[in-house]
């Protein structure tokens, strides 16, 4: 592998990793605050992409307002989903709530396949800033990939600041650390759960509008994206926005390098196998360390 090829694999890995991270951030926030794995997270990414294509191509709204409107709509749908489906079942166990999110995912997928005028076809919203690839030290990058990486890093920083320096953010963090203690000091866990679901839907929507021009979108794209995002969040330990983004980058770069490195008979067919083995190793090492920390603590 030559140096510029290595750089190319790295850039490719960062692009994929950013996509996984954008999906993963929603998982992390909801899990940290409510201990629910929201399997409908990928569907908000789908909704963001599909809505932006609809608003731009069918409704003729200019790019920027269309993107904002798509994200806001996805956000509102997330809040409504929490109020109608999760909060009404508040006495149910966490496992039941997770199953409710699977139901919600199937529901969103089914509706999306019906309501949009292009039905079940794949669609591509326009690129934000054209498709002329940018040359960089012998490697190439699509301008939309730069948008994706930039958005991921921007969202990560904003989330980190929000959680560390605002009252609501600190309350969310308190809920994540100990819901009982947070309740004792007057934080309403239900309000925090609503904020977490709304924020996660917004993140999904943002991810959807920024990645759809590059990855294309269709009504059932959310499931696969959700799986990868879930893995990214698991590598990050569902802990913090920064850990999730690092998790996404790790997954993306490992996948990309697994294609580039020719290990004898291990062609790109083994890419997913190699990626999974590396991930298992990371999780094993980390859980060992966590167990050690718990013993010390």
């Amino acid at each position, binding site marked *: 592998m030559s140096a510029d090829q290595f750089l190319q694999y790295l850039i490719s890995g960062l692009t994929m990793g950013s996509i996984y991270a954008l999906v993963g951030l929603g998982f992390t926030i909801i899990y940290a605050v409510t201990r629910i794995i929201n399997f409908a997270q990928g569907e908000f990414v789908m909704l963001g992409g599909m809505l932006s294509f609809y608003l731009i191509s069918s409704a003729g709204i200019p790019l920027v307002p269309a993107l904002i409107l798509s994200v806001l709509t996805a956000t509102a749908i997330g809040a409504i989903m929490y109020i109608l489906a999760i909060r009404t079942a508040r006495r149910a166990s966490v496992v039941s709530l997770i199953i409710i999110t699977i139901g919600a995912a199937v529901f969103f997928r089914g509706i999306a396949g019906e309501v949009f005028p292009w*039905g079940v076809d794949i669609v591509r919203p326009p690129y934000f800033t054209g*498709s002329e690839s940018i040359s960089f030290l012998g490697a190439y990058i699509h301008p939309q990939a730069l948008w994706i990486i930039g958005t991921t890093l921007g969202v990560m920083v904003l989330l980190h600041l929000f959680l560390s320096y605002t009252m609501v953010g600190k309350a969310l963090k308190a809920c994540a650390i100990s819901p009982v203690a947070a309740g004792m000091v007057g934080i309403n866990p239900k309000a925090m759960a609503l904020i977490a679901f709304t924020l996660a839907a917004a993140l999904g929507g943002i991810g959807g509008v920024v990645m759809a021009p590059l*990855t294309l979108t*269709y009504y059932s794209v959310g499931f696969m994206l959700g799986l990868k995002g879930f893995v990214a969040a698991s590598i990050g330990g569902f802990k913090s926005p920064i850990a999730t983004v690092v998790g996404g980058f790790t997954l993306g770069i490992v996948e990309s390098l697994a294609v580039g490195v020719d290990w004898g008979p291990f062609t790109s067919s083994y*890419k997913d196998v190699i990626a999974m083995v590396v991930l298992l190793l990371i999780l094993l090492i980390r859980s060992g360390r966590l167990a050690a920390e718990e013993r010390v603590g």
Partner: protein
Amino acid sequence: MKKYLKSSVILVLVVALLAIFPMGCTQEETIDAGDTYKVGALLDLSGPCSNLGIPEKQTAEMMVDQINAAGGINGHPVEIIIYDTEGDNDKAALMAEKLINQDKVLAIVGPSRSGTSMHIIDTVTTAKIPLVSLAAARSIVEPVAQRYWIFKTPQTEYEVIPEIYSYLQSANITDVAIISDTGGFGDAGRTLLLDLADDYGIDIVDDQTFADADTSMISQVTHIKGNNPQAVVCWSTDKGSAIVAQDMKTMQMEDVLLFMSHGVANKAFVTAGGDAVEGVIIPAGKVLAADEVPDSDPQKEVLVSYRDDYEALYGVGSIDTFGGHCYDGLSWVILALEEMVDGLTLAEARDFIRGEIESMPEFNGTSGVFNISPEDHLGLGTGNLYMYKIVEGEWIWLK
């Protein structure tokens, strides 16, 4: 409570038995003058292959409307009963049972996907009902000894790949990289691409794969670029193929020819692909260039009339090759029904239709000239495809 439960179980069993009995008896009923001919269709109207199922459904409905408007087949109105398999094996099997036992159809057209078609072969074989599959894989009709009741209409990779390789050979291209998805369609294509390369003097310089969940193929394309191929053959469905084209463009590989499978010969692929799929070369049925087909071609008449009828109903430019597969398959069933006499039982009628399809004389369809025989339940040779290049979002036939 327990007693109540027990008696209700017995009640359910009795009802179930009663429901089964009349089914056995009605087998003896005969199809008489003026009775409706019922034909079943199992199509992927939702799920991953719905872009195939929807034009198939539209074609089937159009054909049945035309027949009924003209007074039916020998005075029999035709009814088409369409069920959505959702691309799911179990659902396809369930719907096949429903068509066979409840709706009592004479023959079944579909399913759209190879996986679902393979899954219901046992069901239709046991029930002794003819099935005309609209899916790609060769193994649907082979080995033919075990596929007595099964036929199919679409070309397989065995017809398509030789067309691509001959084209490459005539253009003096030897260094070829292949990239395919790890699903059934991609894998079957990849295997044959590797097998046939030597016969056409082609050197496979790289062999990359990607998974359905992959969002970017830049890594695979980087690997391919490092091996300097003259042409790339991509074997996948819409989404993966469009991303491969986009990523090759990002990597500034404009001077490398890009070939794709007949699986992407549809409007949605070109629309969604946009600029990135410009210049892509695809082998596909002649229906996409119906007007340009020479008058001497035996398919000319059927191609133009099907295209005109379809676009009159569903819009100019809506034609694709998948609806054509359904046109061919349903035509076989209709041709068989035209020969059928009244007074047959359902089982006799199903057997008659199967025999008629198998012994059908040369048939000029949308996907080619079919010569079905007891040894070949597809009956297509090579020469039924054109190579198209996508130029400004249109299919241009490379003569």
